[in-house]
Each structure stands twice: as C-alpha cells, then as structure tokens.
C-alpha cells in the first residue's frame, strides 16, 4: 500500500507529494496546476530563523513581511514554524488575511505549542513564489523582550506549469491541494 501523504500531517514533517505528481496550488482564489519536478528539505537552521525585534512588555509588533522566505518562480515551500521566545505569533498570507482563524478570533503560535504538538504539524503552511507570509508578534510577558524569534523548516518543491489543466475545466486524475494563500 502506498504511503499516505497529505497536508498538515501529524508527525515529523514529510513531503506532501512525490516528484512527478500533480499539485493544485490555491492562489488568486483558484487552483493552478503544476507538476512537481524536484523536492528537497529546508533544514531548521539559522538562515531560516527570523527575529521580529525587541518588544516592550505586552507590546505588539507591526505585521512584518517575511521576505526571508521568498521562493523563486515556479517553486513553493511547505514549512512549519516554532516561536523561540515568549511571544504569540499570528500568521498572515496576504497582509490582511490571517490564517488559523475562527469567526471571531485568530489562534496563535506560542512557546506552548511544542508541548502538545512536538512535530509542529499544526503550524504547517505553504508559500508559493513571492506570495509572502506576514507575521505579527505580541509579547506575552510583563517585561521587555529583546528579541522575538521564529524558526522554520520544511521542503521546497520545484514545479512545471500545467497549462492544460484549470479549476473549472479539465483536471489531473490525481492531484494534491496546496493551500498556499488565505484568500477565500
């Protein structure tokens, strides 16, 4: 039986598709179709760690565009993240589009997440080309923090556009949905 791959899968991060398989990437409020040519890991490391800056007690940062994670054309990234300092993090995909939201509130990522989600699968998100993510940090403590760090890890996927497929017309027999933006 083939191993099941899917988005937000619990456990240590795995790629969501194999090379040669098709993905539909949700951007511009529709699925665009691509074939995956190549996959490689993005290791949890210093170059993919961002510091959202010093925060006074209870202070909130601006909504910061994370250009650090920009992907080249025809590539997307599957990433998980962890807050390293005692801040709560809100993820945006599109500066005004929050992820992880309910009707009235938005759930956040904090230092507590690894307690019940050690693999970070609930923090997983997808970024296509230069459809940047944005982060906003809030100091949870009663004292100033000198830094608000977030670290990322995951996979990058190199793609070939499949112009013959579209969401309202012909689609591949098998394809994986990649929720790369929050535009709904």
């Amino acid at each position, binding site marked *: 039986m083939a191993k099941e791959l899917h988005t937000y899968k619990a456990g240590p991060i795995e790629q969501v598709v194999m090379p040669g398989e098709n993905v539909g990437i949700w951007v511009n409020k529709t699925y665009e179709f691509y074939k995956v040519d190549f996959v490689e890991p993005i290791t949890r490391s210093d170059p993919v760690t961002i510091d959202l800056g010093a925060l006074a007690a209870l202070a909130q940062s601006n909504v910061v565009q994370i250009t650090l994670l920009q992907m080249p054309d025809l590539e997307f990234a599957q990433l998980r993240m962890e807050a390293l300092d*005692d801040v709560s993090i809100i993820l945006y995909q599109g500066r005004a589009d929050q992820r992880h939201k309910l009707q009235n509130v938005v759930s956040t990522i904090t230092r*507590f997440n690894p*307690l019940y989600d050690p693999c970070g699968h609930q923090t997983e998100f997808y970024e296509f080309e230069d459809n940047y993510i944005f982060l906003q940090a809030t100091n949870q403590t*009663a004292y100033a923090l000198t830094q608000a760090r977030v670290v990322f890890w995951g996979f990058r996927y190199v793609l070939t556009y499949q112009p013959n497929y579209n969401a309202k017309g012909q689609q591949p027999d098998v394809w994986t949905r990649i929720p790369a933006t929050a535009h709904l």
Partner: protein
Amino acid sequence: MSTQLIPRGIRKSSAIITIAAANVAQNLFLESVGPTVNRTVILRKIFAYSNIGNVTITIGIGLAPLVAIIPPFYVLNTLDMQLTENEIPEVEVFANLTVQATILGCMVQVEVEEVGS
C-alpha cells in the same frame, strides 16, 4: 517517593534577587500577563545564598503582606541552599512570586513553570 515530571508549561527563571531590606517583601518572579486567559506559575527550583549571616527566607505572593506558598527555609551563612522540584510542593499560583528574608544582602533565584497558552 517519585515525582512525575510531565511538562505542563514552559520553564523560566527569575533574575538573581538580592534582598534589599530585612523583612520587607520584594518581587521575585513576574508572572506573564499578556495572554487573554491568565497563566499560572508553579515554583520548581530555588537557589539561595548568604554570606552575611544565617537567614530565614520566605517565598510567597503579595508584597504587603507576603503570603507564603511554601514554609520558610533556613540558609546557613556561606552555604548555598538548593531545592529542586522533587522537594518542593507543586504549588500553582496566579500572581507574581515575592520573597522576603530576615537579613538584607542574601540572594535568591527561582525556576518556575508557567502554565497557560
């Protein structure tokens, strides 16, 4: 006796607090107040030292008065005193931790576990 040390929260430590005045409470660890729903604090480890005489130290909540959350403990002059989580009751409070001592100049530091989200 064994203690199950399953993490319930995140670990933090206080600064090294030097007692500024005898028998006057002062802040030891500031509880985080950012979350909408309050966090609580569990005292996990205590490290105390005095080189200005034997001293009785009390850890609690509140400044005037300090309400003890564990019994006072005695620190002999020039002998460091350490209590680890196996030796401390799992007292969980929703407040800043405070400390007072019978002489000024002794030092206290604690490690806590903050429970919340």
